[in-house]
Structures are given as C-alpha cells and as structure tokens.
C-alpha cells in the first residue's frame, strides 16, 4: 500500500515538476499575479500571458546555459 502511494506521488511529482521545476514555479507565479487583480479584469489576462512567456524563455535560457557549461567542461 505504502509502495503504491509512493509510486502515485512520484508519478505526479515527475509529471508536475520533473526536471523543469522552473516551469511549475512560473505557472504558480503567473496564477499568483492574476489573483492580485480584481475579478473581471482584462489586464490580468495580459499579465498571465506575459508571465507564461517569460517562464518559457527563462527555462530555455537555463537549458542553453546548462548545455554551454557541459560543452565548456568537456573541452
């Protein structure tokens, strides 16, 4: 039973976080930012879009840096 619960938790952890925790954090930040706006706001949608785009860009930058570091280390 414990093993099953552990496997279930691991599945969701891998699914939601995995090796890109920055994406999960970015989505939480985006939703947190939307929460600060009053209901019925149109600007909140723009903020959500902007934070999501910045999140992907950030994640890609992290990956490109990781690759550069790897290739630099193997030189």
């Amino acid at each position, binding site marked *: 039973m414990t093993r099953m619960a552990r496997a279930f938790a691991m599945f969701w952890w891998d*699914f939601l976080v995995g090796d890109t925790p920055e994406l999960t954090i970015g989505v*939480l930040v*985006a939703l947190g930012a939307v929460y600060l706006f009053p*209901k019925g706001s*149109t600007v*909140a949608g723009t903020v959500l879009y902007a934070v999501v785009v910045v999140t992907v860009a950030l994640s890609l930058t992290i990956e490109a840096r990781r690759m550069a570091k790897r290739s630099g280390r193997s*030189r």
Partner: protein
Amino acid sequence: MSSFVLVAAVFLASSVEMVEALTIVLAAGTRSWRSALEGTGVAIVVLGLLVGIVGIPLVKYVPISTMRLVIGALLLIFGLQWLRKAILRASGLKAMHNEDEIYQKEVARLGAIPGSTTGRDATAFTVAFKGVVLEGLEVVIVVLTLGVANHRLALAAYAAAAAVLIIGLIGVVVSRQLSKVPENAMKMAVGLMLVSFGSFWSGEGMGVHWPLSDLSILGLIALYGLATSIMIKVLGGVRPRLATAEEAR
C-alpha cells in the same frame, strides 16, 4: 469554436503518443504478433476505463470554476513542458525523436530475451501493454483535462479514439514504425494549444475577463505561436556557438 480546437488538440496529442506506442508495439510484434496485439488491446481498455472512472465523477460533482482553475494550471504546466521540448528540438539544441533508432534498439533488446517466437509470448504482451499504458497516460490526462474543463468529455474521448484508430490502421497498412510523421511539429502544435487552453481556463477560474470569450483561445494560440517562433530564432543563433565549443574539444 472551442470544440474544434479541443478536438484538434486531443487528436494531435493522441497521434503523437500513438506513434511512440506503435514503435514499441511493432517491436514487441517481432516476437509474437498475437501477444503484442493482446497487450495493446488490454492496455486500451484499461486507459478507457481510467477516463470513465476519473472523468465522469469530475464532470458531475466538482464545481466548474474550481475545475477550470485546477485543470487550467495542470494544462499550463503540461503544455509548457511539451512546448519547451519542441522549441529545443526545432532550434536544434536537442536531438529529434528518432523512431527508427528506438525501434531498432527495442528489437535488439527483445531479441536477446529468450522465449517463444510463435503463439503466446509473455514478454511481447508485457512490453506492448506497458508501452501503450505509459504513452497512453499522457493522452488520458489530455482527454480528462480538456474534456472536463470544456464539459465535453465524450467528444475528447472520441477524438482520442479516432487518433488511436487512424494511426493504428496506418501502422498496420505500412506495417512499420511511422518515422516520417512530423512528430516535433505536432508536439509543438499540441504544446501551443495546451498552453492556450491552460491560460484561458485558469484565467476563467480566477475571474479574468477574456474580451472575445471562447475566441480568445485562438488569439492566445496566435500570440504564444509568435513568442515561440521568436524563441526558436533566438535559440537557433545560440546553437552555432555551442557547436563551435563542441568542435573545439
């Protein structure tokens, strides 16, 4: 309108996963076709039951605004993971998914395991079953999230079933893995749709006013598409620098 995008997103996501599952099933089939097909059939039934058991109570008993917020967040995370991978592949920073190579490796691995080559084969059954269930779980998540948030679970399930049937039939007709399928382009399209749906539903769940209502989903797809193409261009410029560093070793 959102029904069309829903069907397109589910169909494409299911097709991508089905192509990957098909490679495993075809490799398992080199040991025993009968067992590989039995494993595939059982896996599809299990996945279908999962959609019914989890999806129907969600549609019936959970308030729609709560559902949309939670599902929107899940779609955003899931979609961003697909999109990120597709951008890295399109810009050349990550190797493309090579179905031919995966197939050859799987056939070689399975060939090394002793067992029957005719009739029932436990290894072929297990490999096909596991492959279809694992690849299919992502389809189940897409069907559940998009289907439940749109209150069109049946439509989403039909779209997934159509993809499974069509890709399966093509696989049977050409009787080989579908390495020519533009998997990355499909993955990118799905990523864009999931992120757009995710933004729309999570926003709706938190009371965001989308000026064009459901039509905003198309606007979001276009805007995310624009940002994606810029990112691919920028990363494409980074690639030669990384390659030069690699060559200098």
